[in-house]
């Protein structure tokens, strides 16, 4: 099934996946994944639950080596390059995990500070300033000395975002940023993501199935199908909503129940 795609924009390609297959041992999760991510775009990885969205993200942030295919960052193959180069590329990544994954034995402020302490030569005063700046950007300065277990789910996500920005990455990855958040907190997070993209000029890859959020922020994307284990559509979520006639994509975008014949009702 040929993926559907709209006309692509003319921005420079920053990352691309070329015919990538992802598998856990013999179990194939997704195959034939190919797409380009333009510099400065917000790219959405979409699909129903269990289709392998987070697995795609894992391979892009260096946690899962693809069984086949190539993953290029600035034209260089990430997985075949030497570990030192891979490490340099990974330094450009900032990741907000689905569970926020804050280090539970450290305070919110220490969470943001740890990457700077471990990986840079910044002095303590500069680190403190940077931590306050990053937490200030996400509106979490008041919780700097609180432990992750003492803050709410939305605050954890924002703290996770501040930590993801700790080393000023130019590529940000978000795994289900709105999952488990109320609509107002979720909308605030969307605004924050848009502001960060515009303010920092970062490229953002977002894994989500929250339609309002996707329509609002993503300007390109791919739709993964759980049944065929392949991508079945390319394009911005709003474009897919209006133009894609793939039954699964149509059902997903219009919140409809898909029937067994593949048609929607």
């Amino acid at each position, binding site marked *: 099934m040929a993926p559907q795609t709209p006309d692509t924009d003319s921005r420079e390609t920053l990352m691309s996946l070329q015919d990538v297959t992802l598998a856990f041992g013999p179990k194939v999760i997704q195959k034939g994944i190919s797409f380009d991510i333009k510099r400065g775009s917000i790219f959405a990885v979409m699909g129903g639950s269990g289709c392998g969205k987070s697995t795609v993200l894992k391979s892009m*942030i*260096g*946690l899962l080596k693809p069984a086949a295919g190539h993953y290029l960052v600035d034209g260089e193959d990430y997985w075949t390059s030497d570990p030192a180069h891979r*490490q340099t590329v*990974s*330094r450009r*990544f900032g*990741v907000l*995990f*689905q*569970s926020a*994954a*804050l*280090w*539970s*034995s450290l305070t919110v402020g220490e969470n943001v500070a*740890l*990457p700077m*302490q*471990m*990986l840079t030569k910044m002095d303590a005063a500069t680190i403190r300033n940077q931590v306050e700046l990053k937490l200030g950007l996400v509106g979490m300065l008041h919780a700097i000395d609180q432990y992750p277990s003492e803050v709410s789910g939305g605050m954890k996500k924002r703290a996770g975002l501040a*930590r993801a920005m*700790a*080393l000023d990455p130019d590529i940000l990855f978000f795994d289900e940023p709105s999952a488990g958040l109320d609509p107002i907190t979720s909308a605030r997070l969307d605004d924050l993501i848009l502001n960060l993209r515009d303010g920092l000029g970062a490229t953002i890859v977002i894994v989500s199935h929250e339609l309002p959020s996707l329509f609002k922020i993503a300007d390109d994307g791919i739709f993964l199908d759980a049944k065929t284990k392949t991508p079945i559509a390319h394009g911005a979520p709003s474009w897919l909503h209006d133009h894609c006639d793939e039954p699964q994509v149509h059902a997903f975008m219009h919140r409809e129940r898909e029937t067994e014949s593949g048609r929607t009702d």
Partner: protein
Amino acid sequence: MNSTDRGPEWSLQTSDNTNVIVLSGDWIAQQGHVPDFPSDGLRQAQPDLKLTFRTDGLGRWDTGLIGFLWALKQAAAQAHLEMDADTLPDAAHKLLDLLPDRPAPAPPIPRRRFAPLSTIGSLTIDSLTEIGTVTELGLETAKGGVASLTGRGRMRLTDLMSNIRDAGPSALLIVSVVNFLVGAILAFVGAVQLRKFAADIYVASLVGIAMVREMSAVMTAIIMAGRTGGAYAARIATMQGNEEIDALTVFGIPVSSYIILPSILSLTATMPFLYLYGSLVGMLGGFTVAIGMLSVTGAGYFHQTLNAVALNQFGFGFVKSIFFAILIGLTSCRIGLQAGRSAADVGVAATRAVVVGIVGVIALDAIFAVIATTIGL
């Protein structure tokens, strides 16, 4: 059962133009007595006719009725009979619509083949791989340790200090109790035998040498394997489940510097001193029993201990404690990192760390005993 309850009943009534399932009574699953629909229940049904329902006599019902109807739906699908669920109560119809025509297929039973050679082969490969991984982890941690000593390391001093606090002072009480009792037990056992030869005073030698050379080091290591090793494994396994280890990996923060090195260093820094402390407390235990049971004076016991326990015995126990600390730290961290991501996996990791730690300490102690005998220590 309430006196107004009626038992669930069903029957199939067939005529030339209909198949009717008549349902009556209360169909409440938790009251029991809800019948199963027999697999041959539709044998009498007229082929090519719709299956309808009559529910005039149906009382209260819950999922007990739906379970029965689902079995009926499957039997009807198998017999190629069309079922008219519209004749059922609306709520029952809606629930039945959610259920598939066929139950989930039974999972295939894995075939077990007897293949001793391949089992031994894969076990050998797994063991060698594990030894390689642990060695690599150990070397990486050692490299991080050397870098820290030269000021180029990435270990945070705060992590080391908090680990030392957890491993050292807070373990003093349990180390005291166990070693005191072990010393006392050794004195009891020795007293019974030595008294026969009027050699009561040699209880001091027995307790001193046994505690300093073997028991204090081994008992302290076993306590630390159970207490600290298990805690390390559980903590790291929990971090694994919360994606905290993934977060470290993505940032490029070496797990060896952030977690393993402070853990091993804190054990290495505290265990030799806990051993020394345990030896003294153990001897105090022996002293207490000797004074209470035997005709030995306090000064005599003290002098006999000083004569019997040479300083190099302390050195031997001290060195052993350092090796035990490295073993416990490395294996428990490795087991934590290897754990799965569920809550059950945390428990499994903690248990494994304790078992491997204890067995490892005793095995390593046996190796030390052989070495000591060989070099005549």
